[in-house]
């Protein structure tokens, strides 16, 4: 049985390689907000209040492009609706927690944290304090995101644009799913999702980000039926 501290540390260690892409991306996010002409305090407030990578950039770009607040808010909600799927997966492991703890832990659920903690949970189902792993991944992400966006806001885009560091974001997610390429059913689900995301990329409110997972999960359900 691992202690709470060991699980927390394990979570920190499991997510830290992703900071290689998260930190440059956070700097870019902070810098873009200021470049678009928004109050630096507001740009930073987003990192605490929304705490959601790409959705923060989209929000500011929409507002500065003349979209209404309603459209900007709706887009953030739709982009982040993928967390519903993460929550559905994680709920199995967090079931025993008190309602208050569930409310608190929810704030730090992020893409990479979900991915790494979910991998850990699957292998260590019987640990008593499993949720400390998720707190570890989430808190690491939170601290790095605050520091990165804040430095982008204060120092501007000191990451040279020519480096194209936004490209690190797809790479970080490739690192997350690449081992599942061993399984044909997962490959089919991934390709379905990827192609759908390109097909629906121009759908309103950036809804491709939730439309394609729904299509892909539907295909997954069909594959499960075929397997039987």
């Amino acid at each position: 049985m691992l202690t709470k501290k060991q699980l927390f540390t394990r979570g920190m260690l499991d997510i830290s390689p992703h900071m290689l892409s998260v930190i440059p991306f956070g700097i870019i996010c902070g810098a873009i907000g200021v470049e678009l002409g928004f109050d630096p305090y507001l740009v930073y407030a987003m990192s605490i209040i929304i705490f959601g990578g790409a959705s923060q950039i989209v929000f500011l770009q929409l507002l500065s492009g003349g979209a209404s607040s309603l459209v900007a808010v709706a887009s953030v909600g739709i982009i982040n609706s993928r967390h519903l799927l993460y929550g559905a997966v994680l709920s199995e492991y967090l079931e025993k927690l008190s309602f208050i703890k569930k409310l608190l832990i929810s704030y730090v659920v992020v893409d990479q944290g979900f991915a790494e903690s979910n991998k850990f949970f699957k292998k260590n189902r019987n640990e008593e304090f499993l949720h400390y792993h998720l707190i570890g991944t989430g808190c690491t992400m939170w601290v790095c995101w605050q520091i990165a966006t804040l430095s982008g806001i204060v120092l501007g885009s000191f990451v040279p644009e020519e480096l194209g560091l936004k490209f690190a974001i797809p790479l970080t997610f490739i690192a997350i799913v690449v081992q599942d390429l061993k399984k044909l059913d997962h490959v089919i689900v991934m390709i379905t999702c990827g192609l759908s995301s390109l097909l629906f990329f121009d759908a309103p409110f950036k809804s491709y980000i939730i439309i394609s997972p729904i299509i892909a999960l539907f295909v997954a359900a069909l594959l499960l039926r075929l397997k039987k």
Partner: protein
Amino acid sequence: MTLTAIIFAGILTYFTRMTMIALISRDMLGDKIKAVLEYVPSAVFPAIIFPGIFINDFGTFIEMNDPKIFGALVAVLVGYFSKNIIATISAGLVSYWFLIFVVFS
């Protein structure tokens, strides 16, 4: 004004995170749904990966000889065999930089 919008966006985002964790109990999800949920990472992350590679900052498709495609393929190969996150990201970035700064410069 903008702050109000940020707060609403934040509340909405928090609800996306909290709803399934705090309000749904495991018994409400049947075995079939649980089996489908096993596929969530594979069903969600390509929607971040594919546009990040194939669509540029202006929202249009890249050319088929774009360095990002090569970088992504290198990342997939290195990731598959190394099982190492840092190696995967670095290999993708370095091969991308090699193409844009050395080959195509």
